[in-house]
């Protein structure tokens, strides 16, 4: 009751956390991904690209490329437009322009596992092998399962000119041309030099250094286990070494069609084409 009252007062003053209950404008652009898919990295990349003369770090990233969930509605309303906002929401029809960042779910599972240990969402005794079935069922995130998340966005928007699908892996292997693609999509005029500068300022090494100094000043790392880093491997394919073969197979059996569509090669299992939805087979827009 008291909590409800406090919320009502905050609400009247516009100081309540927006959650996903904030006004979306038609000219907003959203950087969307499932959790643990490189969202923070790309936030740094874009913030550095848009604000080349400012120092972007963990103390100001929530303002420079805002995450509506942890900000007040009042702050969000006062941002200059067009806004670029970060989100982990599954398909949301209000988001008209979207950069959708996707990452190999076998790496996402490993990353989420370490993050959940760091956040104390799971006990230190939970093994990766125990964690994976819950991850597949969508039980480790309030944003649904990885499949639901990616499928809901891709099925609803693939082929739409206001939807840009970016793979984390491509961004790692060819940062310059992928960043250029995103910049063009966002209408940011930037030559190779400015692009490279933003990439360098957002390198894993630099982010690791910033994290060491600023972990207490950022919502993503505050009150978490400090011996486990937030910026961890920042690589692709780590699952090949760390994910038990059994867990790999579980993920591939559950999500083969979408893995195939996204170009993530299967290791354990031949794809049964009958189970593949048409939009995966053809990549056509709906």
């Amino acid at each position: 009751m008291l909590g409800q009252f406090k919320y009502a007062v905050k609400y009247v003053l516009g100081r309540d956390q927006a959650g996903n209950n904030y006004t979306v404008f038609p000219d907003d652009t959203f950087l969307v991904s499932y959790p643990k898919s490189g969202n923070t990295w790309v936030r740094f990349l874009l913030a550095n690209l848009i604000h080349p003369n400012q120092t972007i770090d963990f103390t100001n990233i929530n303002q420079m490329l805002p995450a509506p969930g942890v900000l007040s509605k009042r702050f969000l309303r006062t941002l200059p437009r067009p806004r670029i906002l970060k989100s982990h929401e599954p398909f949301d029809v209000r988001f008209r322009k979207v950069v959708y960042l996707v990452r190999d779910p076998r790496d996402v599972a490993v990353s989420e596992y370490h993050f959940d240990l760091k956040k104390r969402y799971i006990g230190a005794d939970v093994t990766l092998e125990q964690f994976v079935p819950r991850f597949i069922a969508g039980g480790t995130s309030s944003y649904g399962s990885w499949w639901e998340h990616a499928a809901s966005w891709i099925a609803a928007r693939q082929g739409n000119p206001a939807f840009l699908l970016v793979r984390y892996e491509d961004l790692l292997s060819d940062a310059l041309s992928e960043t250029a693609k995103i910049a063009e999509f966002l209408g940011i005029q930037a030559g190779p030099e400015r692009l490279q500068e933003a990439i360098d300022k957002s390198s894993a090494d630099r982010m690791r250094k910033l994290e060491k100094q600023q972990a207490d000043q950022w919502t993503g790392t505050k009150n978490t286990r400090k011996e486990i880093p937030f910026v961890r491997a920042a690589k692709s394919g780590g699952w090949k070494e760390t994910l038990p073969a059994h867990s790999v197979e579980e993920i591939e059996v559950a999500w083969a069609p979408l893995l195939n569509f996204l170009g993530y090669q299967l290791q354990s299992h031949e794809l049964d084409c009958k189970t593949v939805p048409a939009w995966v087979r053809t990549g056509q827009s709906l």
Partner: protein
Amino acid sequence: MIKRLISGGKQFLGMYPPGRRVKVFPDDIFLVSYPKSGNTWTRFLVANLAYPEKNPDFSNINALIPDLEVMPKREIERAPRPRIIKSHQYFDPRYPKILYIVRDPRDVVLSEYHFDIKRRAIPEDYPVQQFVSRFVRGEVNHPYGSWAENVASWFYTRRDDPRFLLVTYEALQVQAIDELARIARFLNIPEDAERLAFAVKQSSADRMRELEKKQAHLWSSTKETRKDKPFVRSAKAGGWKVDLPEASLAEVEAAWGGLMREIGYELVVSNLAHAGMERH
């Protein structure tokens, strides 16, 4: 400020419809569809099946199968469980068990056109073709996305899930008893032949038309709309074959042909039949 105070007070008392922010319980069942796809008919069918003793009509349907865009938050939260909740929302990962009704978008667009005239969202002389173009672009007078966004977001995320049941409006038209039996099994309601037949009879278009005449002022969706236009309109499948202009037909099929075919809707604009597949 005054407005915000009033709205803050309503927040506090739980007097607003929760919409997408509804609190979900693990035993909830959601009756979901895009607007104008037979949701109200299905609501009557399910209500008559699940609560025949309550004599469902337009005056109590919102209490029996609450609409999360209409009923106040606190009433929805206090509804007896397991709740059956009506929704037009696009994909929501929290919905545990879903009965999804889909209807041929070529009929949906015509139904939406007439409904928007009824509720004065567009003037009576608004050109159909222009309406269809906006419909296809997702520029609709409600917050539930385009037809394809709504359908695809559910269909491709949940269609292999045993807790998701897809029913087409068209199948309901052709074989109401059989489809309602599937729905009953899904809802764990005994498939008693008499009970099924009774629910179908109580939810016939004719009976719903009669109820609408008497109760239009009692129901949220018809209360403040033009009374010279009916809510329960043709209640038929395939009206588009007569009423939808050729160019509009081509527009719908070119945009959504792939998804339509996958659900089982035959395309008729022959030179477009393969266009969708070969575009990429």
